[in-house]
């Protein structure tokens, strides 16, 4: 088959800024890098005519000026660490692994290797960003918990962007081996409010009977662009939970693909997003039920203020063989301003006949009757609104089962005067 080579001025310019950079995956995964480079010929930046990107404009990324920037300056990371969590910490600065800032111990039980063996189930790339991440990867890390091991410590992966124009492209793979348990925390922060673009790829394999809990905390600035591509494969009896907590950030897209590759799997995906000003937050999720007897639960809640925009696209695909599937999906949103916008689209494709699937989506304003009730007891307008916002997202916050992590997230929300405590 002959490949069609697509060129465009934006793509040429974008690629030329990366030309001198060698992918961090080149040594250990040369074939994958070759595949990515080949895909780049055929891919271009998506326009809003592409269904998957209908409400997500990428022009500011494709037309932006970016470069790969290593920053060796000393950074105080304590504000980004979670007090008393006692986690192993892996730090990336502008997408590059920082040995100086990281602190972890790697063992046979829980191994953390930089540039080690990669994991990506497929060599196909659905969009240009995935191909760019692999072809011009800044740093790669592989985390793996051995069979039957319950990891003693949580692992925090901390992504920091520091420089103007920085393009960060870390590649992370996580392997939860049979009957293991692990808690991962991944946070995205920025220092100095410089314009940057993080295009991070995450590839997870959860083996039989293993449990993986992932809390993703996004706290960037208005000038930051953040694209997350998360690909998760779960085997028989596997248990996977991901909480995507978007506290702050100018432009955020989370693309979450969960493939249930066995039976009796439980997958939970939850999220909150509270964009304001002109912020943009997009959550694209796909849950692929391929075998019988699996459960998936999805709960996303958004509170949108000012002129912010939100997107939720939740796809649940139930294959003909996936009988006795339970799949629940819910997306509820509150618009606090007349100029805020939410585009929400549940997509259920069900090809099995003995399943329980439900979805629900609501977008509304704050309940005026509840507000009046609170005010009639003496609460001010601000406090009453924050109390109702808190109540609205509280159930999702409690999906963050680690108390210290939850307190940290709540603290960040309170600091931004978004919640009432």
């Amino acid at each position, binding site marked *: 088959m002959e490949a069609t080579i697509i060129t465009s001025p934006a793509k040429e310019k974008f690629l030329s800024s990366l030309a001198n950079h060698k992918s961090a995956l080149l040594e250990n995964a040369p074939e994958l890098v070759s595949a990515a480079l080949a895909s780049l010929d055929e891919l271009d930046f998506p326009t809003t005519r592409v269904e998957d990107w209908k409400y997500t404009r990428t022009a500011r990324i494709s037309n932006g000026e970016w470069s790969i920037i290593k920053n060796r300056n000393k950074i105080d990371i304590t504000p980004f660490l979670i007090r008393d969590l006692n986690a192993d910490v892996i730090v990336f600065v502008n997408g590059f692994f920082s040995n100086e800032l990281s602190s972890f111990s790697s063992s046979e039980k829980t191994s953390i290797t930089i540039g080690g063996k990669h994991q990506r189930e497929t060599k196909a790339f659905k969009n240009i960003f995935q191909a760019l991440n692999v072809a011009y990867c800044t740093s790669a890390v592989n985390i793996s918990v051995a069979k039957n091991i319950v990891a003693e410590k949580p692992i925090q992966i901390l992504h920091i962007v520091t420089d103007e124009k920085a393009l960060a492209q870390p590649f992370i793979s996580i392997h939860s081996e049979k009957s293991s348990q692990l808690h991962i925390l991944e946070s995205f922060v920025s220092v100095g409010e410089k314009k940057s673009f993080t295009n991070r790829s995450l590839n997870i394999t959860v083996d039989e009977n293993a449990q993986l809990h992932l809390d993703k905390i996004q706290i960037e600035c208005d000038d930051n662009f953040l694209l997350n591509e998360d690909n998760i494969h779960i085997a028989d009896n596997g248990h996977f939970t991901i909480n995507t907590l978007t506290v702050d950030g100018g432009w955020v897209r989370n693309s979450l693909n969960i493939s249930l590759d066995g039976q009796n799997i439980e997958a939970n995906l939850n999220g909150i997003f509270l964009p304001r000003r002109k912020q943009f937050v997009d959550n694209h999720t796909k849950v692929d039920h391929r075998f019988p007897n699996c459960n998936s639960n999805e709960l996303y809640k958004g509170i949108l203020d000012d002129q912010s925009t939100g997107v939720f696209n939740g796809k649940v695909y139930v294959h003909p063989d996936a009988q006795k599937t339970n799949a629940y999906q819910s997306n509820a949103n509150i618009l606090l301003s007349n100029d805020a916008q939410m585009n929400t689209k549940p997509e259920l494709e069900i090809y099995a006949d003995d399943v329980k699937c439900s979805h629900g989506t609501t977008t509304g304003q704050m*309940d005026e*009757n*509840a507000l*009046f*009730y*609170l*005010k*009639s*007891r*003496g*609460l*001010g*307008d601000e*406090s*009453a609104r924050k*109390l*109702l916002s*808190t*109540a*609205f997202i*509280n*159930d999702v916050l409690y999906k963050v089962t680690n108390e210290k992590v939850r307190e940290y997230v709540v603290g960040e929300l309170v600091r931004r005067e978004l919640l*009432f405590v």
Partner: protein
Amino acid sequence: MISIKNIHAQIEGKKILNGLSLDVKPGEVHAIMGPNGSGKSTLAAVLAGREDYEVTEGSVDFLGKNLFELAPEERAREGMFLAFQYPIEIPGVSNLNFLKAAIAEQRKHKGLEPLTAREFLNLVAEKSKLVELDGQLANRSVNEGFSGGEKKRNEIFQMAMLAPKLAILDETDSGLDIDALRIVADGVNSLRSPERSFIIITHYQRLLEYIIPDFVHVLYKGRIVKSGTKELALELEEKGYDWIKEEVETANA
């Protein structure tokens, strides 16, 4: 306490209150009765500051202040309390956290320090007993999953916690069985004091057997058309509202 002078109010262009006047002095209990649609609940809503109602004429002086210049929360902080006819369910907001915040704002308004956790919990224990409200209920989300009676008891519990100067009870008796009615009435009676006034809005005389009012007023077509003492309530119970309506129509003819 409160002096209501000739207020006219409407909702969506429909006139509901037509020149209502009422004076309530400290320590007095006034009952407002009247047939359906006479404007009883509108009066409560206007006093509490619901925005849907537009006041086109008249004035209300509440403890020396122009009531209409105060936002709903300011009215509450000045000492007004409305027990809702239909208390709102607010999932996810804990009854106690909400009350703690409300009391903190009230105390801040008065220039007082917030209560300590212990002081607050002692107050909860004391006041929840008053209306036989289960400690579990006090700790749950505001009114969520409460029965009708529990909701009304929760209103009186909140009233006891906030210790208002003027309490307005909007059909607090509606939907209550006789036991719940007595609990609510006992709660209210225990809060009566020479400094605290009550406006009790009710359709039936029943509640007034338990809470003995100093004055009874009949509201009809948005005005008070008859005032008297507790005997008036008994007369209404016996004869219904038709004779009042007739009196008004004759006087207008």
